[in-house]
């Protein structure tokens, strides 16, 4: 079945992953200029009809699809088709890339210089590169990298150029275009720009989708976009956006190509360039507008050490095998294929499901550094109230334990086994001096003196709020590392929490609680819709295998040595549980008439700040707007909160207090779980 194509969870330990090769090594040894100017002859798609990027535009403008929509819009608005055509042409002009090898060569040269100073290594799985090369020749290819940093797409093109692979065209947000020269340079290195929102604009959608489809169908270049839609500020994978995936699957579903290869690419940074930037953004310090001068200001990063990058090109996933037995392609037989239609429910479900599978495939191949484990442990220790931090030896011991556990859970952990653990730990810590320090043999987060995030500004924090904010910056930064490992632990953690909350050991009841939690957190983590039973079984399997649980037909029992594992897993989920409870309490206690979605975050932030300062809440990471928004999304999805279309543009939030209250209680484990509306085992 299709699920096997993307991943199989049965025994994560047996998962075979390729070895990495450091591509900077050769760059350090040879001339950058010669590298940038070397002969570049990538293997191309076998069905390629070569054309220039200017011809592409004509193909789009003359496509049946676009002509149809132009006529339609013309009839609806009474505008002449010529005018609308001109409009379409202008949209295309604004959107289209102008891929030029010379620009790519320039980037190759410049980036080499930067990468060599900033990163220790850029590791790539060369077998994945070979698979990709094969795939590019066979079928149109879609590259789906994870998105954690601005670096991502430059890095992708850089790697493909280095390995002599076809350069991709990349869907980028319009905000980049604001960066004057850089925007144009990105365009010339293959980026095409799309507006962030174009809701009902039929014409825009038609131009955009046709542009992407034509490039894909003709095998013009691999099409690259980010399934997550935007950079994840939390390092957790984001709920996939479906628009572009819909577009690239369409030619396959309509039989215009035999197959499409979807290649998930996992890019993991040992240290993210935007580390504290993200934390600030999540705390409500607004995102600086992309600008070229901003980029130059950011050049201080050049003097820092950002460790290594791991890029893993996953197994290409065939759209055809994903759709096998799921989609009846003959549904497109009765209407001309160029007439735009809202995808049928069957197709929507299929695309959504595929998107989740692909994001999970990205997650699975994310390399985790030892620091990720350390960050998890340090955060838990901090939340437990140990102001003094942890003894280095204790941290090392726990890290070794966690290393083994995460490996059993199938984590792609890069822990050098030939180096003594203490050395591994101290090495990792030293790279993250901005977040941790070692004093008197104890490891602490750098929470006091407002961290050292802004060494240029001597201002000591005055108000408790400001101090809290500064601490939160460090904690959220740390959390973003811990979050990298969440996909490994999330299913067992949901089960652990369910076991913890359950009053009895009955499997069915635990499954009900598991489903409840899973449902609650499905905006927070990547949990494939409709896969409750599968996820539950996977969690059971992992926890039984690691010796934490014993499960028979009816009962789930915790073993003696299982308590430690379960405690760790419950604590991993705890900040989220408490965060969601906090949001619920806020909605019940504080919400006055007419709270809009826009005002929700500042208001809930204020509420949470109050609780943190009073000591009633211990997790500063609950201040993250990401968590707050996810919680609201979950409540909206569950119908506990409703958006009322009001007078103004913004819909006000209407809270179903009883339901929100009951959800809060259930999260807190106060009530025996009512039978949730979910599948039975």
């Amino acid at each position, binding site marked *: 079945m299709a699920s096997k194509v993307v991943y199989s969870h049965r025994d994560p330990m047996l998962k075979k992953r390729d070895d990495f090769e450091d591509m900077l090594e050769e760059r350090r040894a040879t001339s950058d200029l010669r590298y940038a100017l070397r002969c570049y002859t990538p293997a191309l798609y076998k069905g390629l009809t070569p054309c220039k990027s200017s011809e592409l535009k004509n193909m789009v403008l003359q496509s049946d699809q676009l002509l149809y929509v132009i006529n339609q819009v013309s009839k609806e608005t009474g505008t002449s088709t010529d005018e609308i055509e001109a409009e379409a042409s202008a949209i295309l002009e604004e959107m289209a890339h102008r891929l030029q090898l010379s620009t790519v060569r320039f980037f190759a040269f410049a980036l080499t210089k930067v990468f060599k100073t900033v990163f220790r290594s850029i590791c790539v799985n060369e077998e994945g590169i070979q698979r990709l090369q094969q795939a590019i020749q066979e079928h149109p290819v879609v590259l789906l990298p994870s998105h954690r940093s601005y670096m991502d797409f430059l890095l992708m093109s850089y790697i493909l150029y280095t390995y002599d692979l076809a350069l991709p065209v990349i869907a980028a947000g319009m905000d980049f275009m604001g960066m004057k020269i850089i925007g144009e340079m990105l365009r010339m290195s293959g980026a095409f720009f799309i507006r962030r929102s174009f809701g009902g604009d039929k014409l825009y959608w038609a131009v955009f989708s046709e542009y992407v489809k034509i490039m894909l169908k003709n095998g013009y270049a691999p099409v690259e976009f980010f399934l997550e839609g935007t950079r994840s500020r939390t390092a957790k994978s984001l709920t996939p956006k479906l628009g572009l995936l819909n577009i690239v699957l369409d030619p396959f579903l309509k039989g215009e190509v*035999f197959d499409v290869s979807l290649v998930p690419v996992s890019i993991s940074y040992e240290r993210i360039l935007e580390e504290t930037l993200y934390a600030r953004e999540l705390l409500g310090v607004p995102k600086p507008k992309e600008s070229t001068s901003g980029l130059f200001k950011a050049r201080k990063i050049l003097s820092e050490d950002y460790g290594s990058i791991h890029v893993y090109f996953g197994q290409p996933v065939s759209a055809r095998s994903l759709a096998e037995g799921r989609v009846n392609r003959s549904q497109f037989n009765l209407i001309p294929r160029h007439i735009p239609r809202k995808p049928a429910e069957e197709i929507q479900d299929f695309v959504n499901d595929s998107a989740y599978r692909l994001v999970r495939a990205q997650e699975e191949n994310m390399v985790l550094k030892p620091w990720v484990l350390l960050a998890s442990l340090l955060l838990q220790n901090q939340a437990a109230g140990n102001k003094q931090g942890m003894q280095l030896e204790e941290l090392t011991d726990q890290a070794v334990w966690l290393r083994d556990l995460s490996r059993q859970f199938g984590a792609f952990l890069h822990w050098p086994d030939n180096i003594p653990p203490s050395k591994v730990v101290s090495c990792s810590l030293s790279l993250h001096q901005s977040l941790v320090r070692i004093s008197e043999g104890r490891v602490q987060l750098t929470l006091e003196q407002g961290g050292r995030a802004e060494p240029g500004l001597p201002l000591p924090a005055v108000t408790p709020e400001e101090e809290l904010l500064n601490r939160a910056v460090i904690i959220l930064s740390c959390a973003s590392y811990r979050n990298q490992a969440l996909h490994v632990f999330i299913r067992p953690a949901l089960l652990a929490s369910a076991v913890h909350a359950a009053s009895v050991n009955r499997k069915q009841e635990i499954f009900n609680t598991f489903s409840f939690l899973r449902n609650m957190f499905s905006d927070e983590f990547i949990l494939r819709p409709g896969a409750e039973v599968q996820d539950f079984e996977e969690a059971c399997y992992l926890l039984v295998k690691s010796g934490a649980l014993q499960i028979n037909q009816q009962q789930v029992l915790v073993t003696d040595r299982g308590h430690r594992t379960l405690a760790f897993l419950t604590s991993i989920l705890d900040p989220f549980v408490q965060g969601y409870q906090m949001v619920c309490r806020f909605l019940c206690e504080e919400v006055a008439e007419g709270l809009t979605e826009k005002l929700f975050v500042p208001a809930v932030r204020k509420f949470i700040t109050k609780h943190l300062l009073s000591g009633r809440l211990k997790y500063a990471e609950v201040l993250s707007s990401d968590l707050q928004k996810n919680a609201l999304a979950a409540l909206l999805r569950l119908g506990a909160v409703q958006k009322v279309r009001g007078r103004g543009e913004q819909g006000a939030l209407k809270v179903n207090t009883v339901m929100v209250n009951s959800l809060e209680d259930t999260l807190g484990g106060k009530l025996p779980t009512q039978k949730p509306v979910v599948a039975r085992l």
Partner: protein
Amino acid sequence: MASNSSGDSSSRHQTARHRLSVIAGHLQRPADSNAAVLAVECKAQGTTPNVRTGVRSEGRTVPRRRQEIMKWNGWGYSDSRFLFNKKGQAEFTGKRYRLSGMIIPGLKDWLESTFGASLQHKAPVTPILNSGAVQPPTLNEAFVEELRSTGVPFSHEAEDRVFRSHGHCLHEIFALREGKIGRIPDMVVWPNCHNDVVKIVELACKHNVCLIPYGGGTSVSSALECPPEESRSIVSLDTSQMNRILWIDEKNLTARVESGIVGQDLERLLNESGYCTGHEPDSMEFSSLGGWVATRASGMKKNIYGNIEDLVVHIKMVTPRGVIEKSCQGPRMSTGPDIHHFILGSEGTLGVVTEVTLKIRPMPEYQKYGSVVFPNFEQGVACLREVARQRCAPASIRLMDNEQFKFGHALKPQVSSIFTSFLDGLKKFYITKFKGFDPNHLCVATLLFEGDREKVLQHEKQVYDIAAKFGGLAAGEDNGQRGYIMTFVIAYLRDLGMDYYVIGESFETSVPWDRVLDICRNVKARIVRECKDKGVQFPPLSTCRVTQTYDAGACVYFYFAFNYRGLSDPVHVYEQVEHAAREEVLANGGSLSHHHGVGKLRKEWMRETVSTVGMGMLQSVKDYVDPNNIFGNRNLL
């Protein structure tokens, strides 16, 4: 046109026609004023079967004992087959075809390079039918007794029965070559005329015997396979002896013909009177008029003459409920749903077609073949589409893809003169070097024009002008003609392939124009992928051609074949691939069948093809016409 009468056909026809009219003048009474009745009355009673057979066989291709002239486990005439001679060169034996007696030098290399086949590895084959492998017949004695009293000839010899137990699907022929014989008819009857059929059907109803009509035996849909679960006695009703032209009506240009006549006889006999039907399916040497009606056949030259449903004016069919026919021969009627359309495509599930009135046309004055080379398949399809849009398709226009072009090339017989081979070389040079066509992408359209000379030449120019717009280059009459010859010998080639571990099949579909390229690409790719997935050790041949154009779409023919060495159950693999290919056809907007029919092979997709209500409509007709399932071949529904 049958391959043995192509080439300098028109002049030969004219002499033949003249001679025939002289002879006819000697033999016949002065011709009737309106119609030339060429046939004799049905005199079933009082004549011994032997005498009748003697009369009948005169000038007719198919004898009662098919085994006298045809292979029992392969295609066509016993004397015609491909083989590799002592020098290792391919040769086509016999004298019947233009290719007969010729050496085909390129075939060996093509077979070896395309399939990885080798002359060293010959697949074993059962040489003669072993009657021991045949189940003894289950006879319904009462039926046999009464039948005997009617004087209609019948047989329950093993050979006769085996011949009528199969069509020409790969699995059917493969099993025969292995000497495996499953459920077969228990006896064969040869009615001589409509009235004989009426008697047989009455008796079958009376004694609850299962009847399976048999015409030319060229089915490729498992339609002739006996349902293994059938417990009644199965009687194969062979129409081959009902093969007369009953009358020709020159005023209305129609002819009344018995349903058992095979295509080549029908055309030859009509030609003798200066007429033709123009209905030339690829199987016309052996397939019968009744079979065409029962499967909704399509002829190569349908652009001029129409498909079978356009050709029939009147049909008479014997059903368990009685005889169904219209009361007049009006050219078109508005009298509710056309009852002919219950009969057309009924695949032997409702009754036996006995007589048909067909439109006829005067024989064309002039015929001309032609061919066009295109730089690639896409351009070729675009050209065909344009030709269809302008409604100027010649009698036949077919577009072969690159693989088939190469295949056609491999079938070129040895050239007799150095001059011809020099010319060939020059042509090749011009196309590939001078015009820059990639020999691995170019493809060929073959054309056949018919009509009066002037119009043909004018028409030809129009089509070539359109072709030129799509980069097409005229590539000569010879290439065109060879393309059509290939049609008749390709079935023989499959037998050769099977001698060397290569199995293959063709299948067809019809599809809207905008889907043609997509379906060709996807189905071919699916075949390649499925073969690989199913463990086929060698790359398969997966190729297609567009064989018919319509206003709203085209008919596409696929061929696939592979070397099955190393597979334990090649037929099963083959069936899986064919199944997947059909799924792909349907997923890409293709129809379940353009003209082969459904039979039992494609039954599983009928419901999704015609909807549940549609199935119900067909079923209710079956239930009314044949409540006891006398016509129990279980095709279609």
